[in-house]
């Protein structure tokens, strides 16, 4: 049982990096960005290919990050310069990435078995796979949270945050909202790809299909974090994303343990997210508002 728990925690930390990426587009930019389905695979593919070609596993993480950023940039250009709706822009990049990822991998699955990964560095110092994953996951997640906390407090970061809520006002304050949207998409997809690289090295293979449904997993984690820990200040929101991702993995581990077939997982996640997203409507239905006077939002 403890094994299941620590396993879920370690996986949750790796997926937390991706969850933070999803949060940036979904909540900060107010865009449902489907690019992530492709960029998470791209990150995994780049890392796997690089490592199998003898690149240092840590350098492979940075290559993956960079690859994801270019994917985000592509979606950003489609959405802003070419004015294609955000959802469709993401789908276009995602579809395009499928071919690109296949080219990177050269086949549907690339194994990293017996090759050095970022985790073997810790394992060679006597740690087991799970604790080295948890340690590295914690390091990555903390570093990312610190950097993002700083970044979204800067002039550029503030402009990005305002863009998601009121682009018209941001333009009236002299900011090019195309640039802020593209920046947000670049950062988001960079993180998603980094997450893919961490996951691929952890499971010791990269797979062309591993991205399917990842957007829903990201959203589920974001929402679990919000429901359980509220929407307080920015730092606590970032931390709630990590907790949300970890709790999602624990829930999944539990339902699998309770005998749910693994093939039904995606359906289970989709229904959970649908329920969570419809929470406001359900609440209205279950508890009709008696007093119509509400405070400002």
């Amino acid at each position, binding site marked *: 049982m403890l094994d299941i728990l620590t396993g879920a925690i370690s996986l949750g930390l790796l997926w937390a990096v991706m969850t933070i990426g999803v949060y940036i587009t979904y909540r900060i930019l107010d865009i449902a960005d489907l690019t992530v389905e492709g960029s998470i695979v791209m990150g995994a593919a780049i890392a796997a290919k690089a490592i199998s070609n003898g690149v240092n596993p840590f350098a492979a993480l940075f290559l993956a990050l960079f690859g994801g950023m270019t994917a985000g940039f592509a979606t950003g250009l489609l959405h802003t310069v070419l004015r294609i709706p955000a959802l469709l822009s993401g789908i276009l990049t995602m579809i395009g990435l499928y071919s690109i990822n296949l080219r990177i991998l050269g086949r549907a699955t690339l194994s990293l078995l017996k090759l050095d990964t970022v985790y073997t560095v810790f394992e060679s110092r006597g740690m087991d796979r799970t604790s080295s994953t948890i340690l590295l996951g914690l390091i990555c997640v903390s570093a990312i949270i610190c950097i993002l906390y700083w*970044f979204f*407090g*800067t*002039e*550029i*970061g*503030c*402009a990005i*945050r*305002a863009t*998601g*809520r*009121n682009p*018209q*006002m*941001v*333009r*009236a*304050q*002299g*900011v*090019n*909202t195309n640039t802020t949207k593209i920046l947000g998409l670049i950062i988001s997809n960079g993180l998603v790809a980094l997450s893919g690289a961490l996951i691929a090295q952890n499971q010791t293979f990269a797979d062309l299909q591993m991205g399917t449904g990842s957007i829903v997993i990201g959203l589920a984690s974001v929402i679990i974090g919000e429901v359980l820990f509220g929407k307080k200040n920015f730092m606590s929101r970032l931390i709630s994303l990590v907790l949300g991702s970890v709790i999602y993995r624990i829930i999944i581990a539990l339902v699998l343990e309770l005998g749910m077939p693994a093939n039904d997982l995606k359906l289970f996640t989709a229904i959970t997210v649908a329920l969570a997203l419809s929470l406001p409507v359900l609440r209205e239905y279950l508890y009709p508002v008696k007093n119509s006077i509400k*405070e*400002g*939002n």
Partner: protein
Amino acid sequence: MLKIQGLYKVFNPGTVNEKLALRNIDLTLEEGDFVTVIGGNGAGKSTLLNCVAGVYPIDRGSIVLDGIDITKMPEHKRAAFLGRVFQDPIMGTAANMGIEENLALAYRRGQKRTLKWGITNKERALYRELLGPLGLGLENRLSEKVGRLSGGQRQALTLLMATLKRPKLLLLDEHTAALDPKTAQKVLEETDKLVKEGNLTTMMITHNMRDAIKYGNRLIMMHDGQIILDIKGEEKKNLTVEDLLSRFGKASGEEFANDRVLLS
């Protein structure tokens, strides 16, 4: 200060919804002019201000602001010269951010955004000082989310943001229309004060004829995409609502029609 020449704006050209919203507008504002803009529904008032602000491209003509041709300049670049307040209080601020963060965004209007911290302690002191005279108690709620403020408070804040960095031109589009009469008066007084103190060149759309007459040194009336009246100087000072209505009738050959215009 502002020179608009031969401005045309067509919406949805070539479709059944084609609409010539501005036709051959010529308008020159002197430095320090405070122009009130009045006109019926769909006269083109908002469109005129939006064209000056660069919200949409124009079809013909030119716009020169303080010697700079801004006709083709993108909206976010022109913003360096413009202060804007919109009719809807929600439009002027980012609800998910604090009062001070909104002010900090406005404080950097026209400046390149960098990786420097988005707001400094020195600024906070300045904001407190500027918010105090509004009499809304906002100076003690600097970090509170703007989404929690009332419409009037948000409009007062937007007004402050629009003038925080002195604009070459202040554009106000019915910025008190969504407020209750008492709050609207307060925000108007504040507007007048800011404009006078800063000697700001200003265009203010209003649907209140009395306000249009009371404020500013010049009044223009629009009808069907054209400026049909331009009243300044002594003539403006002695203007009455009745004058205005009868002159509108003569100039346009129609009754004045704006379901939101206040005659009383």
